[in-house]
């Protein structure tokens, strides 16, 4: 597996946010993590990144990451698209991309061709190309989401963590995000995706994990899930077609 997470436990003060969370995502696979608000979805991604202290094991292509700081995890090739995009709003589009490219230049990985990486990323998100000099805080919501993904892709990640990538987006933009996810999956990127809008990302998912009260309850294939719609009701509180 490209990314494997075993027995993750995380705490916010005295409250346990993750309980023995175990997941695995293979190269070219999209695993969607669904759950209600506060179930531990975003915390799982933060724990993988090292942004939240957690006990347990996180491995990238067999290499243990749990003792590493967040910046070291990123440099090894884990791209992160946080909830709410968290762009560096005062920086321009080009500068946000440069931040991603700088992480890609870290020692320990092959020497990158930054211009080519940038061109590839902009090819995935053409609306960003004419806006390179614009402060990212002035972009529309959809463009900001594209930039958040583009910034993470500048790392040429082998694993991509996406936290609610369709949040607040129009249907046409959601379709674009889905196309990019499909393209990345075809390129062999392992994608762990957290989402509340089931219908938005199910078409690109390979497997689905349900998380409740910080604990993984079920991990099922998409086809298996379509045959068992009661799972949606139980863990997310909506029907698959809602």
């Amino acid at each position: 597996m490209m990314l494997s997470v075993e027995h993750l436990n995380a705490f916010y003060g005295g409250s346990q946010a993750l309980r023995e969370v175990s997941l695995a995502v293979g190269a070219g696979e999209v695993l969607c993590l669904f759950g209600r608000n506060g179930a531990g979805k975003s915390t799982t991604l933060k724990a993988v990144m090292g942004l939240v202290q957690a006990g347990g094991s996180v491995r990238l292509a067999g290499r243990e990451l749990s003792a590493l700081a967040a910046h070291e995890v990123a440099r090894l090739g884990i791209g992160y698209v946080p909830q709410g995009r968290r762009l560096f709003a005062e920086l321009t589009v080009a500068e946000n991309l440069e931040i991603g490219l700088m992480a890609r230049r870290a020692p320990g990985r092959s020497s990158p061709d930054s211009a080519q990486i940038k061109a590839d990323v902009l090819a995935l998100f053409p609306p960003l190309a004419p806006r390179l000099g614009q402060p990212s805080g002035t972009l529309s919501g959809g463009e900001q989401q594209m930039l958040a993904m583009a910034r993470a892709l500048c790392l040429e990640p082998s694993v991509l963590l996406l936290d609610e990538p369709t949040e607040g987006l129009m249907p046409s933009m959601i379709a674009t995000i889905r196309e990019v996810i499909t393209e990345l999956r075809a390129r062999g990127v392992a994608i762990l995706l957290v989402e509340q809008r089931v219908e938005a990302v199910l078409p690109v998912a390979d497997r689905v994990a349900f998380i409740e009260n910080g604990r993984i309850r079920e991990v099922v294939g998409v086809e298996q899930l379509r045959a068992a719609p009661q799972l949606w009701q139980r863990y997310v509180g909506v029907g698959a077609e809602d």
Partner: protein
Amino acid sequence: MNFAPFLFLASLEGLVQAAVLCLTAVGLSLVFGVMRVVNVAHGEFFMLGAVLAWWLASLTPGHAAFGFALALVIAPALVGAVALAADRLILKRLDYRPEATIVATIGLLYVIQQTALLTFGPDARPVEAPFYFRVQFPWFGYSGHKLLVVAAAAAVLLAAWYVIAKTRIGLVMRATRFDRDTARAFGINVHRVYAAVFAVGAMFAAVGAVLVVPVRQAHYLMGLDPLLLSFIVVIIGGLGSIRGTVVAAILIGFSDGLISVFFSPTLAKMASTLLVALVLVFKPQGLFAVQSR
């Protein structure tokens, strides 16, 4: 009475004051902006710069310019090293928590101040100006060294602007300032950035001190005034805003110079403090507030 020569002289004095204040306050603003640390010991880095300048100048034989040039390079470097050690030994261990670092830097203030007293003594020490020449204006001649202070401060500030706005180092600093967690998630070693910024912030104060010490003398209690004025400037300019800090430093420096010449230095400090109070009442975020997450 012809008013113009007095006004011109006051403006020149204000310009010198503004130049030194710019350097000191930009250091403080940089540290707060990037690290969210209110460095109460900042004035002591200024004092340390001046004291080290005296020490280095007194060790250097020959023309005073050699000692001054040596001090201008070595003193800020030594002050930067002290700041780096303070960051590693104190601030990092406190995880840069704002409340804890205020208390810690108050302690650091006294440690540096009392160490200076113990090693350097209680007397004020003069440092010889690197050269004596007067720039002749229509009404009077003016110290060439003071004009050099203004030019050197402007050069340092321009270089700082270039690094922050145009280089990758500056980009990393701006990203860290805006959102520490996201910066970490993109490979930025935030602790290393903090250490560098704390050292550079202290070095700014030290450069200001070395430049101005031939005019003011070195003394172990001289850090208080620059600290107070820097806080005034940083609050007026907007916490963390370098542009606001420079504008406010020029405003306060000039008003301080003008009021000191025409009235008294005490009244000048009162006016600055009143201005801070007005800013806090009517625009508490400062004149040029910056956004951060």
